[in-house]
């Protein structure tokens, strides 16, 4: 049986006696974002999971701080931080199986690292020695994607291909609130729903697209409400509640894996840092707003829950901090080493075989570099 048959043979256009093709009611998101921490649902949460999330959040926060510091030292060209958004970043990576695929946006180096990619390789794009530093197939992580929302159809195509091959693979694709305005968002969600592809779309609504607030981006009741227009379920979740994000994403992944098709998840969070180190956030928002959100910090929320329930003590907090420091020190050290560059890389990967034109150009550059090296009395590295 083919995938096409599986999802039902062609039904003629609804005749005059009309029937909705799908019942819209179950697709609509709840009015309130789903929360676990501080609610009754927290009691059912697995303590081990909560502790693992906590360790990752603390590490993630430290990673963001370290990477930002590296821009100041000129070791990174630019860094878009996810401080305040660590719950989403970390949960996105943790809900996936090894065989699954992650499709990050340009901001999501933390999710990429949480998935297991070497932190230095994850930062290659932002350091500037190459575009993608890691092998996407190794950890099944697509390249960090700079043109907004363009990674979403990739995720759909990959998930669809896996399904066609009979593989039990789910793709999770990340995008920002601003990215939902792009045509590619629309086309990707529509293809996913029509094909019933095993994809989960995670929108991190962090309130801004650079300087543009959500109110100028959409008039929708919520971004999750967009789901119903594609015939897929929309879910709204508190993006700073790591337990809630983990649960909602896990459900969506399970649903997709079981053949239930795609889900759109909107996680409401906040970008505490500026857009990147190069941005001046005071131009478009006030401190008071940022402070409100610091109150609702993902680490604080989880810490309160864990300590309140006796699952974490001062020693545990300190241990998590130590772990994070170790990671940061290692990252610092690695990033302080100069990148190894080979200018011939410019030509070697444009095509499987360089065209005659590229061979000429490569020879030209090689000759120039040799001449340069000679005149410097050195040799070409």
């Amino acid at each position, binding site marked *: 049986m*083919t*995938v*096409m*048959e599986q999802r039902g043979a062609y039904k003629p256009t609804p005749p005059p006696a009309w029937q909705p093709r799908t019942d819209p009611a179950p697709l609509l998101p709840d009015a309130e974002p789903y929360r676990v921490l501080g609610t009754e649902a927290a009691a059912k949460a697995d303590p081990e999971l909560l502790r693992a999330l906590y360790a990752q959040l603390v590490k993630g926060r430290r990673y963001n701080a370290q990477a930002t510091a590296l821009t100041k030292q000129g070791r990174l060209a630019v860094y878009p931080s996810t401080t305040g958004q660590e719950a989403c970043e970390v949960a996105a990576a943790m809900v996936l199986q090894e065989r699954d695929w992650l499709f990050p946006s340009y901001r999501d180096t933390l999710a990429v690292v949480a998935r297991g990619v070497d932190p230095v390789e994850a930062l290659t794009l932002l350091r500037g020695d*190459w*575009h*993608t530093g890691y*092998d*996407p*197939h190794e950890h099944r992580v*697509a*390249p960090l994607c700079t*043109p907004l929302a*363009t990674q*979403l*159809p*990739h*995720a*759909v*195509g*990959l*998930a*669809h*291909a*896996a399904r*066609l*091959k009979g593989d039990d693979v789910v*793709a999770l694709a990340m995008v920002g609130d601003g990215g939902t305005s792009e*045509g*590619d968002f*629309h*086309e*990707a969600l*529509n*293809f996913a729903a*029509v094909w019933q592809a095993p994809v989960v779309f995670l929108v991190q609504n962090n309130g801004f697209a650079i300087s543009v607030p959500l109110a100028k981006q959409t008039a929708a009741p919520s971004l999750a409400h967009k789901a119903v227009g594609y015939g897929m379920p929309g879910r709204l979740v508190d993006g700073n509640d790591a337990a809630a994000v983990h649960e909602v994403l896990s459900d969506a992944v399970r649903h997709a894996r079981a053949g239930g098709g795609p889900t759109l998840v909107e996680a409401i969070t906040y970008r505490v840092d500026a857009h990147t180190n190069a941005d001046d956030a005071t131009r478009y928002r006030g401190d008071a707003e940022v402070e409100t959100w610091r109150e609702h910090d993902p680490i604080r929320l989880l810490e309160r829950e864990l300590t309140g329930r006796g699952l974490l003590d001062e020693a545990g907090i300190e241990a998590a901090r130590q772990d994070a420091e170790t990671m940061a020190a290692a990252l610092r050290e690695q990033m302080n080493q100069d990148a190894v560059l080979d200018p011939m*890389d410019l030509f*070697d*990967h*444009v*095509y*499987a075989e360089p*065209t*005659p*034109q590229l061979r000429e150009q490569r020879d030209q550059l090689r000759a120039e570099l040799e001449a340069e090296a000679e005149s410097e009395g050195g040799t070409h590295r």
Partner: protein
Amino acid sequence: MTTVAVKPATMAQALTRALRDAMAADPAVHVMGEDVGTLGGVFRVTDGLAKEFGEDRCTDTPLAEAGILGTAVGMAMYGLRPVVEMQFDAFAYPAFEQLISHVARMRNRTRGRMPLPITIRVPYGGGIGGVEHHSDSSEAYYMATPGLHVVTPATVADAYGLLRASIASDDPVVFLEPKRLYWSKDSWNPEEPAPVEPIGRAVVRRSGRSATLITYGPSVPVCMEAAEAARAEGWDLEVVDLRSLVPFDDETVSASVRRTGRAVVVHESGSFGGPGGEIAARVTERCFHHLEAPVLRVAGFDVPYPPPMLERHHLPGVDRILDAVGRLQWEAES
């Protein structure tokens, strides 16, 4: 397999056959696009494929070109070989960002770890009485995008051979199908193991000594006709069919021009910023001291493609080609 007599086939039939053979040979090959399934495509090039290979292998997609190419990228990431149909030249434009920013760059971005073997079939060019947006020659855009191969057949046999080679290529290929040659016929034995033409080789369609016509796709038959007509004027024209714009076969083209000393580039696409500028420039760089005259260009005008009733004034025809040949400073000869 039964042996059949060599009989005339159309270019469209050869393309269908190439798709079918590629799908039969490799289960990774998937055809996708608007109306390619049940209908067999508006030009019927995918006719019968959905029936033979199932809708999962030849899929009617939703109507969204960026979505089609974007999902094809994901499919290729997972090891498939998508063959995407864009319904008409101008309807490939919505997919430009996916094409330029991803399809052309993914291999390079990942230092060769994530090649994208995608073939993008684009029916292109005019001469079929199409209304606005149905007759564009958009090859200049593709040529200017490193990372893409750009291939276009002019004969029935090449349609088969080059499409097979494009699908077999581990790199993305924009495969430009000259619309008005879809119904052109040629004696071609579809049952013969047809040659898979290597990508990147031009071919001399007609040898001659007076001057070289450098052309491709829909303009090849026009140039052949012009070469015939030129005999009356005493010119013996060579016709080079490029077949592949990227990579460009400098060797074949330069050899021809060095021999003849004169050249005219002929294409339907607009002249300004079109392929002819690149071709003339590189021929001149390589053959300067052999040239008796500047390389001239006969191309479409630099206007949006005209409506059906005016297109004959726009398309480069035999007369304009002969006029250009006439301006190749023959007096220098004497």
